[in-house]
């Protein structure tokens, strides 16, 4: 008997007991669907967790921070130059593993005013146009300043939406979105032209919540207008996005000349950078790249180690480990439910061969061998499992939709091909395991006994 005959017989047998087969498959269907839906949920969770990591520049971004001079170099403290623009040029020229370097010069406690409104930016930074790519910024309106703006130290700025909300009014209050391109604002006494505005950064959850609330009718306001206090839905996990929306960028030279002139020596404004960001070429080369950067910087810093690197490795590791744990526990539960489905198949196969003892006897009398009968029963069990698996994969789409409907503001679950392949392979394995014992039992039947069986 060839394999296709066995499969054809398997299908016929399943078709002959449609309802029973369906009930048997249900275990596998639910098992596969829950496995795929669970992994889709975890994938969504992972995307949500990585969202914030990506928003601050990803794992490839390394920050160079100032550090106290180590004790054994204390006597050299006078000669320390600190982080300067020279470091940036040196890294650009001599560290090929580093793709992008941007200097950052920050001034704290800056009050920005316009027409009686004021705004305190947490992130008022003078930088290069490359900061756009470095920090994953997107200019939605207007433009980023360019090298010429920087060269001539022009008073131009690119602002985040939080600055716009504070100085011009937020869309919620005004009822329309104000695009303040070409407007002038006063930063610490200097007049700046707004030439660009970033897009509004928010987590996927916040975006969804906002989308939902847009369609809801406004709640009836009762009593005098008042602030309802903290603890609402607005804050929470989205600190990084909040910080990012607070950004106000101006050209590095503008910052240096206009805001650093009060400090510094020899009639030269203080050239030290607040920090320096680098992007490495390849994440697998993180450690060599760090070593390269350190070698270069040790020269420009005259051998004084007054700097340190900051990466997001711990954060990424933490995400990885929590995702792994979620996968493990979810996968374990789904695997158990698939196994239960397999036990259901085994049970039905045992019942089925008991009621087909006579048939097996007839097949053996006309020449079926041990392996013919064995393969027939095994194939039948595997076919049930595989049909169940296919149905389960389809059902998982439905389950994911239901999940999205139940909690629309969670991160969208994402069905992955990997999870589907694993679920399919696993149920095929379960089908084989469930079929082995019944197939053995059927194949071992004595033909005479089987023919006499009533």
């Amino acid at each position, binding site marked *: *008997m*060839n394999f296709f*005959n066995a499969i054809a017989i398997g299908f*016929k*047998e399943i078709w*002959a007991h449609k309802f029973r087969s369906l009930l048997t498959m249900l275990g596998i269907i639910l098992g596969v669907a829950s496995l795929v839906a669970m992994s889709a949920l975890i994938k969504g969770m992972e995307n949500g967790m990585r969202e914030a990591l990506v928003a601050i520049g990803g794992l490839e971004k390394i920050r160079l921070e100032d550090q106290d001079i180590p004790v054994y170099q204390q006597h050299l403290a006078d000669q320390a130059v600190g982080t300067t623009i020279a470091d940036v040029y040196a890294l650009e020229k001599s560290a090929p593993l580093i793709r992008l370097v941007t200097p950052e010069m920050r001034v704290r406690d800056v009050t920005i005013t316009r027409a009686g409104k004021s705004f305190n930016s947490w992130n008022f930074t003078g930088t290069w146009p490359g900061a756009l790519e470095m920090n994953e910024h997107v200019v939605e309106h207007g433009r980023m300043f360019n090298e010429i703006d920087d060269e001539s130290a022009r008073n131009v700025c690119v602002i985040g939406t939080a600055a716009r909300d504070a100085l011009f009014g937020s869309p919620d209050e005004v009822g329309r979105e104000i695009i303040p391109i070409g407007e002038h604002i006063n930063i610490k006494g200097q007049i700046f032209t707004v030439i660009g505005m970033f897009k509004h950064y928010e987590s996927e959850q916040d975006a969804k919540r906002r989308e939902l609330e847009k369609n809801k009718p406004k709640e009836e306001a009762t009593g005098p207008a008042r602030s309802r206090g903290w603890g609402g839905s607005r804050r929470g996990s989205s600190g990084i996005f909040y910080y990012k929306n607070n950004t106000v960028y101006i050209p590095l030279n503008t910052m240096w000349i206009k805001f650093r002139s009060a400090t510094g020596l020899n009639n030269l404004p203080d050239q030290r950078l607040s920090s320096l960001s680098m992007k490495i070429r390849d994440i697998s080369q993180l450690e060599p790249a760090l070593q390269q950067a350190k070698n270069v910087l040790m020269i420009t810093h005259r051998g004084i180690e007054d700097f340190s690197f900051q990466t997001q490795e711990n954060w990424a590791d933490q995400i990885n480990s929590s995702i792994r744990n979620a996968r493990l526990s979810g996968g374990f539960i789904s695997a158990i439910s698939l196994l239960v489905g397999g036990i259901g198949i085994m049970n039905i196969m045992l019942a089925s061969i008991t009621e087909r003892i*006579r*048939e097996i*006897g*007839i*097949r*053996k*009398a*006309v*020449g*079926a*061998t*041990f*392996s*013919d009968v064995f393969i027939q029963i095994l194939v039948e069990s595997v076919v049930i499992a595989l049909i169940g698996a296919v149905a389960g994969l389809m059902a998982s789409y439905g389950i994911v939709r239901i999940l999205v409907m139940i909690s629309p503001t969670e991160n969208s679950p994402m069905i992955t091909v990997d999870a589907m392949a694993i679920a399919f392979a696993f149920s095929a394995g379960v089908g084989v395991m469930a079929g082995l014992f019944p197939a053995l039992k059927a194949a071992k039947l004595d*033909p*005479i006994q089987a*023919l006499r069986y009533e």
Partner: protein
Amino acid sequence: MSLVELRNVSKLYHLGGEEIRALDDISLDIESGEFISIIGPSGSGKSTLMHILGCLDSPTRGSIQLDGTMIQNASQRQLAAIRNQKIGFVFQFFNLLPKLNVLQNVELPMIYSGKNARERRDRAMAALKLVDLENRMKHRPFQLSGGQQQRVAIARALVNSPKIIFADEPTGNLDSHTGEAILELFSTLSQEGRTIALVTHDPEIAARTPRRIEIRDGKIAIHVDMKLAGLERK
């Protein structure tokens, strides 16, 4: 050399510590083309004899040769192949598969001998034509009368052109009229040169075959051969 040669075959069963001799030192030859009946009361051992002859069972002692092959120490796989290629069975209760239609039932032995679909169909149609049922091939067994079902079973037994056909009480479940037709069919097949062994408890049926063997208590009690006696009917 005979088609079937049984030499000193015994079959013992153990039932609750007691030894039962179902067959006791039987020797028997069946020639190619013979029409033989094996008769005996129930419990005499005739079914055991047929099972051993039909390669469904193996003897405790003694040797069997079928078409030149020693089968008393053949493996299960070899026995299955012999049943498939050289032996056709017809049972009292027809033993057709209720889920398959007539054509598929007749094709069944050829599925296990690895014939392709086209050849299976052609040969099954030819076998059904032989038993005069070619217009019923799409019917299910339960849609046919008992006599028709038995003819389907005979077609199934014939389809792989076996060396010998064993019929175990083929008329036992049919009324006398239909039973008569089935026996006629066997006679016709015998005249066409097929070897047939009929197992029955009914002396009247046994009387229709040229050669009769009566089994009692596991031994051949009476052996009647009309050819030897010069009484061949034809």
